[in-house]
């Protein structure tokens, strides 16, 4: 009898144990359904970004990026280094260079003679920001801008550095910054692309820009940048062909949409839906774009503000004016590229012309946004892909010199939406070679830009090929000091 009781108890315990185990396993199995990434390495469930939803209160709603393509010399623009003038033609000390890799263009040079800016520098504004005489108009707005003198990048040649700056990776194929913002924030004005690209070219030694820089990468192709043409007809083939009326076009698009819809139902390719959307947007652009590209209504003082070349399509000034119009109409990201800043040789001959191209219009854009009450919600970024060496490339003479690529320190400036105005951030050493205070990496810059737009750079992700991608990859610290 006793044994039977014992047996019974064992049984109860065993049942109890198995029951509990069952519960535990059951719960594990259930909760595992919430962890698709744990057991499912490939990851089927694609998380959709909530377009138009910010992670926190944005400081800026829109960005205009004035990209100076080819890398303008920081030593002739914003990073004043009088020591280089004093040490003219003396060799760059190895204690400063510290074995830094050089490009193939100067690594064979026998010596690295230092050369200071041939152009004078002066302090401007209440903040006493140093600006070279090449940029007299930017000098006038220094109290509205924040100069970062401690940018640094990983790449030493144009293509990887440019690609890095624009997409967060040195290798192409990732979405551009504008595409990320379009993905994260959506479009403000559905009559226009959220990401527009404007190109211009100076007379200086130029480097190419390629459409991979405004590619949507792995994001939906509706986030792709739309390049405007540098002609009187900025969006090519936007107008209806001769003999086709607006109504006919509408009917055609409706029918085309039906066909595409049928195709989508058959194949389920999301790109077909994108295509339908793009046709719709192009149709709306037919009305919206002419309003924005018509500069004939600009009052005389605005023309004078930007300079008369703002009426010549395809110039930097014209692109700045167009960028203002696009941004004012809610385009999330307007990307300008101005080519011709690659002064390996003949810096003294080339750089004044390049500066003349961009100085007046860049400053004008800030002034113009300000007088429209838009500067506090628009972030403007001005800068190139890396800096230039403090030593001369090629032959150094009293009247001319050149500078090679320098990734370890360069200057950019930002203005508007949420950025502290009238300040300089970061410092380089007396040789302008290494950063001695507050370095800002490209990832840091991206993190800060996203932060200003109300996005958490660690949360703005897109899953592709089994991993979540970010604009900032796995790095990036927000530069808090420059936040207003």
């Amino acid at each position, binding site marked *: 009898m006793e044994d039977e009781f014992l047996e019974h108890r064992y049984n109860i315990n065993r049942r109890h144990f198995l029951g509990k185990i069952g519960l535990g396993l059951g*719960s594990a199995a259930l909760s595992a359904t*919430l962890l698709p990434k744990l057991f499912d390495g490939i990851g089927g469930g694609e998380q959709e970004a909530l377009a138009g939803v910010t992670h926190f209160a*944005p400081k800026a709603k829109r960005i205009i990026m004035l990209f100076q393509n080819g890398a303008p010399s920081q030593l002739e623009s914003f990073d004043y280094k009088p020591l280089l003038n004093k040490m003219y033609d003396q060799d760059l000390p190895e204690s400063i260079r510290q074995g830094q890799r050089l490009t193939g263009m100067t690594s064979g040079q026998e010596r690295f003679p230092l050369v200071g800016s041939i152009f004078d520098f002066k302090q401007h504004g209440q903040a006493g920001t140093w600006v070279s005489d090449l940029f007299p108009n930017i000098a006038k707005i220094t109290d509205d801008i924040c100069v970062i003198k401690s940018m640094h990048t990983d790449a030493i040649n144009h293509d990887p550095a440019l690609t890095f700056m624009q997409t967060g990776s040195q290798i192409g194929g990732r979405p551009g910054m504008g595409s990320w913002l379009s993905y994260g924030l959506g479009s403000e004005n559905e*009559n226009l692309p959220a990401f527009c690209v404007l190109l211009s070219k100076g007379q200086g030694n130029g480097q190419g820009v390629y459409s991979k820089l405004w590619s949507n990468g792995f994001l939906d192709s509706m986030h792709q940048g739309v390049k405007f043409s540098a002609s009187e007809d900025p969006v090519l083939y936007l107008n209806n062909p001769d003999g086709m009326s607006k109504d006919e076009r509408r009917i055609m698009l409706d029918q085309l949409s039906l066909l595409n819809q049928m195709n989508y139902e058959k194949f389920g390719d999301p790109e077909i839906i994108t295509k339908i959307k793009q046709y719709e947007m192009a149709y709306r652009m037919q009305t*919206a774009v002419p309003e924005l590209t018509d500069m004939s209504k600009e009052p005389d003082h605005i023309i004078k503000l930007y300079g008369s*070349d703002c009426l010549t399509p395809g110039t930097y000034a014209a692109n700045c004016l167009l960028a203002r119009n696009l941004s004012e109409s*809610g385009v999330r990201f307007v990307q300008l590229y101005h080519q011709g800043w690659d002064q390996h*040789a003949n810096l003294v001959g080339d750089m004044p012309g390049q500066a003349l191209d961009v100085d007046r219009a860049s400053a004008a854009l800030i002034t113009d946004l300000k*007088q*429209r009450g838009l500067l506090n919600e628009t972030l403007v970024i001005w800068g190139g892909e890396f800096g230039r060496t403090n030593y001369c490339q090629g032959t150094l003479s009293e009247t001319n010199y050149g500078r090679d690529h320098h990734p370890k320190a360069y200057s950019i400036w930002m203005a508007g939406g949420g950025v502290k105005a009238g300040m300089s951030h970061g410092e380089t050493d007396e040789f302008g070679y290494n950063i001695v205070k507050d370095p800002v990496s490209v990832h840091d810059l991206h993190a800060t830009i996203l932060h200003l737009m109300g996005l958490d750079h660690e949360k703005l992700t897109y899953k592709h090929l089994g991993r979540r991608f970010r604009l900032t990859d796995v790095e990036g610290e927000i530069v808090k000091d420059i936040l207003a």
Partner: protein
Amino acid sequence: MIQLQKLVAGFIFFTLCILTFLLVFESYVDIPKWLWPLGRMHPLVLHFPVALVFLLGILSFSKSKIEEKSYEGIQQFLLHFTGLTASLTALMGFFLSQESSGSDLLALHKWTGAGVAYLVYVLILTVDKRSIYNGVLIITLGTTVYAGHLGAGLTHGTNFLLEPLMASEQKEITAESPIYENMVAPIFAKKCAGCHNSEKHKGELDMSSYAKILKGGEDGFVWEAGNADKSEIIKRHFLPLDDDHHMPPEGKPQLTDIELALIYQWIENGADTSRSIANLEETDTLFSTANVVMNQMNLANHKAKYEFDFADQDVIKGLNNPNRSVNQITPASPAISANIYVRARYQKEFLTELLEISEQIISLNMVNLPIEDDELSVIGQFVNLEKLILNGTNITGKTLSDLKACTKLKSLALSSTKVTASINNDLAEFKSLEEIFIWNTEIDKAGFKSLAEQFPQLEIFLGYSSADEPPLKLDIPSIGDSNKKGRVRGVNEEINFESNLPGTNIHFTIDGSEPDSTSPIYKEPILFNAGMVIKTIACKESWLCSDVKPYSFITQGIQVDTAYILTRPSESYHKITKDFDATRLIDQAVCEEGNLTHDKGFAYIGEPLIMIADMGAKPKQIEQVVVSYFINTGSVVFPPKKITVYGGNNKNNLTVIANFSPTPLTKEVSYSSSLATVSFEKQNFRYYKVKIETLIVPKWSGRTGEVSDVFVDEIFFY
């Protein structure tokens, strides 16, 4: 009953297992959308375990007053109910936590909350062992209170509990408030006390309280009451920024203009701590400055707190269309910003439909839309509006008083409209207005001035004016139709000029003299003559005349049938495909003057350019070969060293017929196009070979020994 208890205990165990599992693998967790509402019920359910844990405490305390059997029954029931709600609450809380970004506060709340759920389960297990049970119960009570407090911090802000007690800091500043304590001292606290405090008194100065400031530092007193100019604090502000004695030091936040004015005038007024706006004369400068600061500070204290409710999400969604975007400024804020776009498609309903969310709209942008005066009465119903952009609309300002209900309006943009100076009368209604944009309107200088006098606090944007600046230079005239035609023209072909700025006169000469504003004005196309050079200049009132731009045109050459290049161009300019095509050298098109376009020609470095031209079966007479090239000595693009022309009817056996060496340069030449002419007696050959050699860079350029580049964009035959 026992059965039910077992079931419940099993369920609690089950829930806790899920929770444990999720907590361990949190970084992999991806909560599907359909579970979000469950997470959002956390704030609802959490009140159960909080109350029940307390009830358990009370029960334990009153054990002696309850009959044993009933006590046990109640305890068992309560325990299981508490455990059930606690574990569910924790699980829901976990779901909710995945929605937002992880702050430290949230993490702490998550762990303490989960802790409560586990502790209650421990209570269920230890109910038979009194000593352990009571100990655990006390810990559970403490943890519950703490977790609850943290949770309240998440929803109401961390200082929610003690806020009423600390309210004095954020109280409304009034005219009776002492200026020093409420306005001056906070500036010191913000900009000085970082270095001058009781722990870190730089320069032996402590500015953490009034009494300590009065003691001064190693350089004496901070101020001299009644004499601001002699006060150390003011003097130091005006030292150059890089001076070691400048305060606050370089790199630290500086005093703003208004802060400086306030400190200065307060010292000038006698540095009296009892002084308030109420006991100042209205004419005193301190009176107006302190008023501005007071308004700013009160506004800052109220900022970004909205008392109105969220709008219905479906309503917001419904209001969004391609012509109108309507968004909450953040998901967490009820405030909405609305933009309307595209002038050509505007309809008044776009605005009136927004009345559905009239309470929530704080920002409205209708730039460049055909908004009429009568529509302001609609906007006037958006009572919480803070920012209104009406730039470029059709309004005249007559109905601005329709906006008077928008008392929170801070920013009003009316530029490029027809508003007149009479808006002065209506602006007084907008007590919160901080900035107004009124450039390019009917308001003249006198109007601006009276506006500025009437509203001294208001920041008035008058826009960029070119009046104070030296006049700008116009752009040089350009050749009309340049994309199609360029500089190569046939005799009697029309040449057009144009300027990018409407209303500009183009003056020109064709005799080689320098044109100016008195030269003939270009009115109709000029007919081309061989070798014509037209010098042009653009002039317009209130602008400086452009630079003189000479346009040298090139006469069309005789058409070459086919051409071949025998030497490989340099790849440093552009990629050269295997079978490079010589067409670009004989296509009668050259680069724009002084502007190198890579695909219009070929570059050679060191190696000569050798081209063979086939004039076809019936060759015309040729007496000249002209080579067009580009010069920019700064980037080592020089003229050719020598051009040699060979001729003959057998491609493989051509003889020299002439050569020519351009005059070597003796100084830098930038961005210039040039021609070199090789003349010879008239020939009727079928084939011509042109050899263009590059030179060694001359000594004066400082690049001794380097080989120059030659860039040729066309070879003409005449």
